[in-house]
């Protein structure tokens, strides 16, 4: 087994067959993954409580109660609603108006089970959000430097030219849609859809999250006024921060679904011990 680990760590050598245990995720990737799992969940849930303080989103530099939001979560009478532009959705029970753990009615945007802390407290949610932001900053700085140094980026994440051909991508999409996942040696590396997704998260969504987060800081806007120009004003940055947060949630949901569909025990183990059993080839 240890020879498997050594031969596959180099991603070269003799091709492996389905059923063999290979070394798939290095310690840097595993640490980054689990740090993210905790930190991003805290960031999301504390962020939802911060949003509860003013559940309206605007475009531009300013935006407050007298101005027209493009998105709003609220309640009227005994109904909770989510309004996006002209579209209003009844969200009673989940958003805007819901029952707390002991059955009491609450008029807040996001429900107690989705927020940190669970009862309304803007100050405490900010303590969580702004402290975990620094944990996240530290983790991503270490991961980024490490990934360049150990060639995780060029070796595992950047798609090869052949993988970017439309025909190849189309086939991957078709295979994913019909739940035909890579087997044997082909399952050793990330497929092109995985590569593009992880890259999209790492180099598009996460940088957008960090920069729009900084744009909401009046002190950072003074230090780096280009932030305001980049996103079209503080309230636009706040809106983008919220949209990208939900793109990350979408990524998380698809990620979990894929783990479940491709073998949760094997996948989770590979992210804990690094070792992944290649799925058996189709007969």
């Amino acid at each position, binding site marked *: 087994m240890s020879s498997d680990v050594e031969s596959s760590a180099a991603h070269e050598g003799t091709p492996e067959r389905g059923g063999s245990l290979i070394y798939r995720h290095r310690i840097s990737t595993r640490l980054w993954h689990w740090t993210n799992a905790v930190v991003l969940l805290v960031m999301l849930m504390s962020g939802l409580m911060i949003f509860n303080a003013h559940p309206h989103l605007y475009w531009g530099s300013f935006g407050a109660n007298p101005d027209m939001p493009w998105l709003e979560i609220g309640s009227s009478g005994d109904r909770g609603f989510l309004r996006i532009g002209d579209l209003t959705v009844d969200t009673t029970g989940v958003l805007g108006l819901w029952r707390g753990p002991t059955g009491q009615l609450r008029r807040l945007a996001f429900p107690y089970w989705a927020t940190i802390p669970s009862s309304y407290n803007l*100050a405490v949610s900010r303590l969580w959000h702004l402290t975990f932001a620094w944990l996240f900053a530290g983790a991503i700085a270490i991961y980024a430097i490490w990934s360049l140094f150990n060639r995780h980026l060029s070796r595992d994440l950047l798609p090869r030219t052949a993988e970017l051909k439309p025909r190849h991508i189309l086939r991957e999409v078709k295979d994913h849609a019909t739940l035909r996942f890579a087997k044997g040696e082909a399952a050793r590396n990330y497929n092109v859809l995985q590569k593009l997704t992880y890259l999209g998260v790492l180099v598009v969504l996460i940088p957008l999250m960090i920069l729009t987060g900084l744009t909401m800081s009046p002190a950072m806007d*003074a230090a780096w006024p280009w932030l305001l120009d980049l996103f079209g004003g503080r309230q636009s940055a706040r809106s983008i921060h919220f949209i990208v947060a939900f793109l990350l949630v979408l990524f998380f949901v698809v990620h979990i679904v894929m783990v479940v569909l491709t073998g949760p025990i094997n996948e989770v183990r590979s992210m804990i011990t690094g070792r992944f059993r290649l799925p058996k080839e189709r007969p």
Partner: protein
Amino acid sequence: MTPKSFLNRRRFLTSFAVGGSAALVAGCDALSRNPTFREFLGTGEWLNYRIQRLVGGTAQAREYTEADLSPVFRTNGNTRPRSAEWERHAATDFVDYRLTVDGLVEEPQSLSLAELRSLPSRTQITRHDCVEGWSAIGKWTGVPLSAVLDRARLKDQARFIVLHCADDFGGTAYYESIDIVDAFHPQTILAYGMNDSILPTGHGAPLRLRVERQLGYKQAKFIMRIEAVDSLSDIGRGRGGYWEDVGSYNWYAGI
């Protein structure tokens, strides 16, 4: 995988997720109350203060144009103090109002609005960012705090400027404090005018602070007294401001 086993698995995962979320939320609530963890949660503020001072230095907040002004600038917090002294001043257009400047200063001051207006003035169109998330753009006219502090001549030990206000929440007077860097920042003014008129009551008449690189709760309204101190520990409950004392808001509100 048969459809049935998939459904069972899905049901298992759903209950796992709901149970996990409940445990997570309960765990985080317990952590929020734990004093050691609360101390850890304070590191964010410390880092934000140090790093933003390092990166920002004395950088100025963006100033906007008349075209950018919020059509309606909403009020927030207290919109009218309940103090008898403030009411007396309001009834007489603040002619007898005096701003007290004391604490660690060589020459304590007692300044009328007319005297404040005769000092150098500054007008700026800036964005007000509430801790809740909303923003409004307004035009503020006032005297730079540095001009007032120069008149009073700060002693070397002074490290913070405390703004004592006429309004209160449940009998506890509002106050706020800023460091010396922000006190002498060119955009830090004691505003007596807003949007080309006299500062309205709802926005803090007769005098409010504008400290443009921090959030709304630092922008103390209805200012009666300015005190220079070397430590915040003897004021209120010692955390530097009303919301800092009662609601665990960060004293440094640059983010």
